[in-house]
C-alpha cells in the first residue's frame, strides 16, 4: 500500500485548524477553547485558533494571512456543513494564492452542536472530527478545476407555453434554439383553454402571437411531431438525437390550406380529435386547429387507408396543388450539439375514471374540466355553447374540486390551478347558460396576484360554494326533484350536514399529473424525479430551475403543478440560467472526479454498467475501461465497485477515507 503523501514545499505539512463559534450555534454546545487546545496537540498542526464567525470577512482574512505568512499550507475549518460554506473558504484560499483543495471542513454544527444537548459529548465529537480532518488533509493533493468550452445552442423540449417562452427568450438573446415538440403543433394545454384566470384574457389571443413568433424567429428551429431519442455528453457539450416522425406532408411545401383535409375519402371525422380531448372527431389527414404552428397538415398512419392498406384513391394528393403529400416519408434522425437543455415537457390531466364513485364515463353529462374548456371555447367543438348530451342548456351545474388532488388515494399534493380554473369555469358557464353553479371545494386556494379578488367577484356573482369533499355522484333519486338528475352527495362542513344537490351537469376539476413516460424521459436526460414523478429541482428554494445534471434546466409544470404566470416566470428563469452558462463560454468541472490508474485495470468490466452519468466506456484498443472526467459527477459508484482499486476518486481516495476513519477512531 503506497502512501500518496505529497509533502509541503518546505517538507512537513503545515496545517491550520480554525474552529468557528458560529455565534452560539456551535459555541453554545462545544467547548471551543478546549477543542482548539486539543487541535494544537495534533501532528502537523502549526496553527490552531478560533473565531466567532469564520465565514465572515475577518474570519477568512485570518486564514489568508496565515497562508501568506507561510505559517500554514493546508486548512481545516471546523464549522458548518461543507454544503454551506465550502465554496466560501475555497474562494478565500484562491484569493491567498493557495490551492483550494488543500482544504477540509469538519462539520461541528449540523453533525455536532445541533444534534445534542450534551456539552461534553459535543466537545468530544468535535475533537474527533477535527482529528479526522487533520489526519486526512495530510494526503490532500493540489487539484485543478478543468475548463471545457461550451456549445452555444440550446435545446428546449416541449412546446407548451413554458417551452415557447424559454425558446423565444433565448432566441431574442441571439442563441440558436432547437424547440422539439412531440405533437404536430406547439401550444400545449394553453392552446386548448378559452379564457385565462384571473383576468379572463382570451387564451388564444395571448398565446398565438407567441406561437407565430416561434415559427418566424430566425434563431428558432422548430421540430414538431418529434421526440428526443438520445442524449449523450455533458454540460456545455450535449450530443442529442431527435427523432422526427413522418407526418407524410412536406413541411416546407404545405401552407395549411385545408384542401387535402376536405378532399379525404372520409367525409367525416373517424377518430378521436386529440385537440378537442375527444369531444369531436377528426379525419386521418388533419390540421390540429386553425392556429396550429406550424400550420401544416399531418396524416395519422393508424387511420389513413393509403398508409395502412396501400389502396386509396388518394384524393388528398390530387387536391394538393403544391405536391406536399409524401407517403414515402420515413422517420428522420437529426443529430445536434447543444450546450444546455431546458425541459418543459408539461403535465397530463388526471384520469377522472380512476375515481369510480364520481361516475365519469358511466353517466352522461359528467365532464372533465379540460373538456369543458373546449366546450366554452368559441373555436371548440360546440362553438362555445355549453350544453348537455341532449343539446339542452344545463340549469344546474356542479363543479367538483380536487379530483385527483389532495387525496391520499390518488395524489396527495395540491394541483394549484384547479381552484382558480374552477372559479373561471363557474363564471364562464354562468355567463353562457345562466345556470345555477355549485362549487364543491375542500379549501379555496387563491394565493396569486389578483386571485383572491377573482374569488370575491365570483362570490358576488351568486355562484354557490359548498365546503366539503364530494362523496359520490350518482343518478339515484330519493325525491322527485332528483329524478333524471345527477345527484352530488357531499358533506357541507360549514353547516355540518350531508347535502344532496341535484344537477344537470357535473364538471370534475381534474388535477395535474406527470406524464406516463416520465421515467423514460428522466433517464433520457439523466434527471431525478420526486416520488410523485415531477422532475426534481436542484434546490427547492435556491436552485428551482436547475437539476442535479449540470446544463439541464426545468421550466413549467414538468417540475410540479403550476399556472401560466408561474410557468412563464420559470421558463424565463431557465432561459436566463442557460444563458448564464452559455455566455460564459466554458464550464468549470469540479475535480472530485474518478480517475483510472490504467496499469491496474484488468478490463474486468465490473464498472461498465454502473455509471449513472455514462462517463465510463470500454477502450477496445487497450482492452481496459476509460473514464470521461468531464462527464463524471464524482458519485464514487465505480470507485467502490472497482475490484482492483484501479478506479480512484480525487478527494476521496481509499487512503484519504481510511485516514479520516483512523483519525476518528484513534481519538475515540
Amino acid at each position, binding site marked *: *500500500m*503506497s502512501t500518496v503523501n505529497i509533502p509541503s514545499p518546505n517538507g512537513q505539512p503545515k496545517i491550520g485548524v480554525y474552529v468557528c463559534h458560529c455565534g452560539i450555534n456551535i459555541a453554545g454546545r462545544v467547548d471551543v477553547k478546549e477543542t482548539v487546545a486539543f487541535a494544537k496537540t495534533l501532528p502537523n498542526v502549526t496553527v490552531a485558533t478560533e473565531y466567532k464567525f469564520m465565514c465572515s470577512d475577518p474570519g477568512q482574512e485570518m486564514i489568508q494571512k496565515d497562508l501568506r505568512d507561510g505559517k500554514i499550507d493546508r486548512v481545516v475549518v471546523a464549522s458548518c456543513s461543507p454544503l454551506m460554506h465550502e465554496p466560501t473558504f475555497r474562494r478565500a484560499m484562491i484569493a491567498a494564492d493557495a490551492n483550494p483543495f488543500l482544504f477540509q471542513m469538519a462539520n461541528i454544527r449540523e453533525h455536532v452542536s445541533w444534534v445534542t444537548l450534551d456539552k461534553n459529548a459535543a466537545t468530544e465529537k468535535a475533537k474527533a472530527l477535527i482529528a479526522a480532518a487533520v489526519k486526512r488533509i495530510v494526503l490532500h493533493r493540489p487539484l485543478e478545476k478543468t475548463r471545457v468550452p461550451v456549445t452555444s445552442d440550446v435545446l428546449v423540449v416541449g412546446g407548451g407555453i413554458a417551452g415557447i417562452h424559454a425558446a423565444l427568450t433565448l432566441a431574442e438573446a441571439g442563441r440558436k434554439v432547437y424547440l422539439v415538440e412531440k405533437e404536430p403543433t406547439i401550444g400545449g394545454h394553453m392552446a386548448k383553454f378559452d379564457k385565462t384566470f384571473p383576468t379572463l384574457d382570451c387564451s388564444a389571443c395571448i398565446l398565438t402571437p407567441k406561437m407565430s413568433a416561434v415559427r418566424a424567429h430566425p434563431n428558432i428551429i422548430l421540430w414538431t411531431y418529434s421526440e428526443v431519442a438520445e442524449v449523450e455528453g455533458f454540460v456545455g457539450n450535449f450530443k442529442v438525437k431527435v427523432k422526427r416522425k413522418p407526418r407524410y406532408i412536406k413541411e416546407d411545401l404545405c401552407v395549411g390550406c385545408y384542401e387535402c383535409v376536405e378532399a379525404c375519402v372520409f367525409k367525416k371525422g373517424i377518430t378521436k380529435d386529440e385537440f378537442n380531448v375527444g369531444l369531436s372527431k377528426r379525419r386521418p389527414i388533419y390540421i390540429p386547429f386553425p392556429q396550429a404552428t406550424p400550420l401544416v397538415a399531418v396524416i395519422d398512419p393508424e387511420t389513413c387507408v393509403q398508409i395502412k392498406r396501400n389502396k386509396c384513391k388518394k384524393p388528398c394528393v390530387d387536391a394538393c396543388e403544391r405536391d406536399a403529400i409524401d407517403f414515402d416519408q420515413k422517420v428522420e434522425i437529426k443529430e445536434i450539439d447543444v450546450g444546455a437543455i431546458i425541459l418543459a415537457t408539461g403535465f397530463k390531466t388526471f384520469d377522472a375514471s380512476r375515481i369510480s364513485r364520481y361516475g365519469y364515463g358511466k353517466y352522461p353529462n359528467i365532464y372533465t374540466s379540460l373538456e369543458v374548456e373546449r366546450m366554452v371555447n368559441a373555436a371548440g367543438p360546440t362553438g362555445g355553447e355549453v350544453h348537455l348530451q341532449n343539446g339542452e342548456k344545463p340549469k344546474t351545474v356542479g363543479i367538483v374540486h380536487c379530483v385527483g388532488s389532495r387525496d391520499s388515494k390518488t395524489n396527495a399534493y395540491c394541483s394549484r390551478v384547479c381552484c382558480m380554473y374552477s372559479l373561471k369555469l363557474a363564471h364562464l358557464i354562468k355567463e353562457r347558460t345562466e345556470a345555477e353553479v355549485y362549487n364543491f371545494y375542500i379549501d379555496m386556494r387563491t394565493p396569486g396576484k389578483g386571485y383572491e379578488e377573482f374569488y370575491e367577484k365570483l362570490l358576488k356573482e351568486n355562484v354557490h360554494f359548498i365546503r366539503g369533499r364530494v362523496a359520490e355522484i350518482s343518478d339515484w333519486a330519493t325525491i322527485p326533484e332528483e329524478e333524471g338528475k345527477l345527484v352530488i352527495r357531499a358533506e357541507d362542513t360549514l353547516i355540518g350536514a350531508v347535502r344532496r344537490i341535484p344537477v344537470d351537469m357535473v364538471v370534475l376539476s381534474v388535477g395535474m399529473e406527470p406524464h406516463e413516460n416520465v421515467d423514460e424521459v428522466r433517464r433520457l436526460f439523466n434527471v431525478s424525479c420526486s416520488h410523485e414523478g415531477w422532475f426534481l429541482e436542484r434546490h427547492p428554494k435556491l436552485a428551482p430551475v436547475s437539476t442535479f445534471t449540470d446544463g439541464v434546466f426545468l421550466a413549467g409544470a414538468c417540475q410540479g403543478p403550476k399556472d401560466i404566470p408561474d410557468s412563464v416566470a420559470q421558463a424565463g428563469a431557465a432561459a436566463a440560467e442557460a444563458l448564464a452558462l452559455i455566455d460564459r463560454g466554458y464550464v468549470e468541472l469540479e475535480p472530485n472526479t474518478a480517475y483510472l*490508474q490504467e*496499469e*491496474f*485495470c*484488468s*478490463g*474486468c*468490466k*465490473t464498472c*461498465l*454498467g*454502473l455509471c449513472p452519468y455514462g462517463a465510463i466506456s*470500454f477502450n477496445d484498443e487497450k*482492452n481496459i475501461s476509460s473514464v470521461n472526467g468531464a462527464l463524471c459527477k464524482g458519485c464514487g*459508484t465505480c470507485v*467502490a*465497485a*472497482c*475490484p*482492483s*482499486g*484501479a478506479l*480512484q476518486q480525487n478527494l476521496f481516495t*481509499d*487512503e484519504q477515507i*481510511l485516514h479520516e476513519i483512523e483519525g476518528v477512531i484513534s481519538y475515540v
Partner: protein
Amino acid sequence: MSKPKVAFYWCASCGGCEEAVVDLGPDILKVVEAVDIVFWPVALDFKRSDVESMLDGELTVSFINGAVRSSEQHEMVELLRRKSGLVVAFGSCAHTGGIPGLANLFDRKAMFDEAYFNVPSVVNDEKTVPQEEYEAPEGTLTLPNLWNTVKTLDQVIPVDYYLPGCPPPVNLIAEAVSKILKGELPPRGAVLAPDIALCDECPRKETKPEKMSQKQFKRPHEIMIDPEQCLLAQGLLCLGPITRKGCGAACTTANMPCTGCMGPISNVIDYGMKALSAVASLADSNDEEEIEKILSKIVDPVGTFYRYSLPASLLHRYYQPAAQGGKQS
C-alpha cells in the same frame, strides 16, 4: 565461494506449499545446484539446533509458508528471521492468513469444543483436551500454546517479499529464486507476482459482455458451466477481477471460478471488503428487496470473500470484548 544457503519452513499450513516446491520438477535440480538447502523439515533431516547454531544472517533466504498461530511457530519464525538475510512469505497462508485464517471467526475455546467434544465422530467421555503442560513420570511434558488468533507472517516478523497463491505457482517460485540469486529484486515488501487482476490473463476475457450485472448468483454445481464464456457473466462468483494474476488462470482454464488465492493487487487495502463491494455492485436491480434476494444466494460470504485473507483484513478477526474473556492474540 560457498553456495547461498536456503531454508524452507512450514507453520499452519497443509503441505501444499511444499508440494509446490517439488512441483518445480527437474528445475529443482537447478535450484539445488545453485544453493544449499540447509533446513527443510518436510524433506530433510535437520533439526532446530542446526539452525540455532548458524550465524545471524547466514541464511540467504528463508521461504516460510503457513500462517502463524502457535508459540512454537512464533519461536521458529523469529529464529529464522534472525538467521536470514531475506524472509519470503510463501503462499496464501503466510501472505494473508489463508484457509487456517478462517479460524479467526471463532476463538480457541470454540475450536477446542468443536474438535474435542462436538464432532459426531468424537468419543471423549473424559472430556480430555490438550494440555500445554503435563506431569509425566519422565518429567514435565509440554505442547506449544495455540493462539486465539491466526496471524499472517508479517504480523509476527518483518517480511521482505511475498509469493502469493495456494500454493504459489511454480513459475513464480522459479522466477523468485532466480531473482534472489541474481540480486534483481524489486523494492522490499513487494509481492513477487504481476500487479494486475486475473481477468488480464484469463482466456475468457474476450467473452465479457458490456453489462456484467447479475439477477442471480450461482454455485458451480448448479449449472452446466460454459467452457468459454466469462464465468462471472454466467453468474458464478468468480473472484478473478479482484485477484492478482500470475497463476496462468489455472482455475478458470479448468472451468472453475477463481476463489482468490493470489490475494489482492497492491492498491487494494482489504481483499474481502473490495470483493464484497464489487460483487454487490453487480446485483442487477434497483429494488432493495430484490437486491437482498440476489445477494442472499451467496452462501457464506465471509468464507467466500475472505477465504484466504481474514487475518490480513482490516478487522483481523471477529471482535471479542475483553469483558467476555476475549483475547485478541
